């Protein structure tokens, strides 16, 4: 097809020629034979009819002349035929020669074509090879590039990880420092708180002792009873009011513990007003026998 595209006229001609050649080989001989058969009747269709002597003589002369003529004619015809045959033979020879030439030419053409094809093939192979090579080269290149990219990415990744690790380390460091600072602050706070708690606890103990001294336990079974008294304290330690906020269910018990908180007044309070502020509202949990 490529060939057709490249040399349309040559190909067409070649095709037509080939076709003609084929037709000739197939039908050529038959054509000549037919002509041979057709010539026979022409030779055999001679008829003669005798009418009188004169006539016949004339006729015979005529006939003789005719015969002569005919003979001449025949001779000529034969000569013609011979000539024709010769011509034909020549023509056939020519044709044969031509054919051979054609064939030769065709063979040559074919050879040329083959050579061309081979060349083409070679070229194509070459091209393919080249292409393959190019492709391989490209592939190689691509691979190399990919490798390079990969390496680059890996490098980047490493860099990134490193950066992240660095950032993390930095962050951790910062956090550690922050934690340390917070720890110190917390410790400071806790220290303050501890001091405050300690002071509060010691006053709490004093208050507890004073309330316990003032709590006359009611007789009978009181273990298990539980009563909570909320007491509001004046700055001097006096009781503003005392209220049972969680009853034990035993009125005598409740009254005894409420009274204990009232009787314990004035409660010992720290002088430091900030510490004393813890003691404005106290909740006494009376839980006899409990720990």
């Amino acid at each position, binding site marked *: 097809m490529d060939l057709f595209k490249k040399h349309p006229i040559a190909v067409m001609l070649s095709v037509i020629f080939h076709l003609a050649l084929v037709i000739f080989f197939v039908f050529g001989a038959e054509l000549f034979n037919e002509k041979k058969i057709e010539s026979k009747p022409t030779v055999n269709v001679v008829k003669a009819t005798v009418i009188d002597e004169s006539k016949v003589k004339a006729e015979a002369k005529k006939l003789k002349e005719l015969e002569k003529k005919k003979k001449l004619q025949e001779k000529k015809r034969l000569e013609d035929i011979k000539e024709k045959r010769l011509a034909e033979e020549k023509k056939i020879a020519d044709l044969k020669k031509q054919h051979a030439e054609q064939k030769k030419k065709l063979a040559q053409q074919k050879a040329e074509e083959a050579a061309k094809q081979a060349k083409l093939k070679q070229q194509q192979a070459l091209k393919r090879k080249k292409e393959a090579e190019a492709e391989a080269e490209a592939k190689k290149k691509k691979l190399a590039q990919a490798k390079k990219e990969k390496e680059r990415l890996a490098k980047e990744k490493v860099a990134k990880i490193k950066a992240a690790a660095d950032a993390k380390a930095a962050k951790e460091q910062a956090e550690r420092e922050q934690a340390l600072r917070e720890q110190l*602050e917390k410790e*400071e*706070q806790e220290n*303050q*708180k501890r001091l*405050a*708690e300690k002071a*509060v606890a010691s006053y*709490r103990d004093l*208050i*507890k002792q004073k*309330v*316990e*001294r*003032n*709590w*006359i*336990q*009611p*007789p*009978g079974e009181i273990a298990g009873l539980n009563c909570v008294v*909320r007491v509001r304290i004046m700055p001097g330690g006096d009781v503003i009011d005392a209220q049972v906020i969680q009853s034990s269910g*035993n*009125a*005598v*018990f409740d*009254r*005894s*513990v*409420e*009274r*204990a908180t*009232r*009787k314990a007044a004035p409660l010992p309070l720290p002088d430091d007003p*900030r510490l004393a*502020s*813890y*003691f404005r*509202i*106290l*909740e*006494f*949990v*009376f*839980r*006899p*026998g*409990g*720990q």
Partner: protein
Amino acid sequence: MKRTMKTVLLLCTLLSFSAMSEALRIEITQGVSSAQPIAIVPFSTTQVAGGLAIDIAQIVSDDLARSGRFKPLPRTDMLNKPTSAEHVNFRNWQSLGQDNLAIGRVSSAANGMVTVQFQLFDVYRGEQLTGFSISANRSDLRGVAHRISDLIYEKLTGQKGAFSTRMAYVTSKLGINGQLEYKIQVADADGFGAKTIVTSSEPLMSPAWSPNGDKISYVSYEGRRSSIYTQTLRTGQREKLRSFKGINGAPSWSPDGTQLALTLSKDGSADIYVYNVITRSFRRLTRSYAIDTEPDWSPDGRQIIFTSDRGGKPQIYKISANGGQAARLTFEGSYNARASYSPDGKYITMVHRVNGQYRIATLDLKTGFTNILTDGKLDESPSYAPNGSMILYSTNDGLKSILAAVSSDGKVRQKLRLQGGEVREPAWSPFKQ
């Protein structure tokens, strides 16, 4: 700058701390078992025609003091003596360390009766806890006073007062003829108003109250033989139970008053029998070669505890009132005897020997824990008050036997001074029916 920061920090801490515990919680796990201070102001008698021979406030004070649970304020310490609420200044009584205050008034009523009004105040709360108005005969004012004592006691301790109850006990002293004279007496719980219900030249023993307090059973050796008598207090009429050869002793009334547990030795050794008051029949409860004696009924009437030496030494055993197998209750010490149930049935009190000395102890039936309440050498015959708060017993004061009372937790002990020589075997009455 740093200083400021520090101050801010401290303030923050304090704030957070105070926010954390808005109200400081303080746990109180113990108090004191001391007596409650109470002021009992002499009752006004200006409205009584002819005045009063008895001092109600003093009787109440003595009752409460004797219980061991109260410490009445001496009158001489009182700043003023209000007789009506509007004259009460609670601050005064607070400054005197008083928890409670009782005031009262007596006025004449119709038909020679008097009306006694009294009020009880909580000094620290500044409010009235209770108030009563009681009409009574002039002759019954001691009873009214005990009634007031009961009301105050119940209000302030949560337990029913036992001041209106009585006790029976045995006295013995040399008579005019140089002979020992035995008596069973019944007195108010404060020892006043003692009345002799029976006198004998032979020993009298083991007085036992009927459950509604109208009769007393006891053992008498009159005729030199022991017999059990049941005497109705109101009439003085007494009935002798059929007596048997040997011991007839230690009567104890069943809580429903239909049966009497006692000790008989008619079949050999001393055993516990049950006498049915209605059918007048005896039923043998224990059957042992040892001495079984001193029965006492559980408050629900289902069990009977008694003393037995079946194990070699006297110990307390328990048996179903219907009979059956006896189970030993006491395992601590080599001598436990004369047991009786507390009114709630949770404890028994008994004589417990420790280091050769006889003391009053309680046994917690639930835990098996023995609690020694007294420290005498020869303490005997424990008897629970009907409210379970105290135990009467006899103890030796020098060479003389007297009565004493101990609170059931052993914390308060008090000797009772009674007329009549040697006093022993007290029996606390049930609540008045």
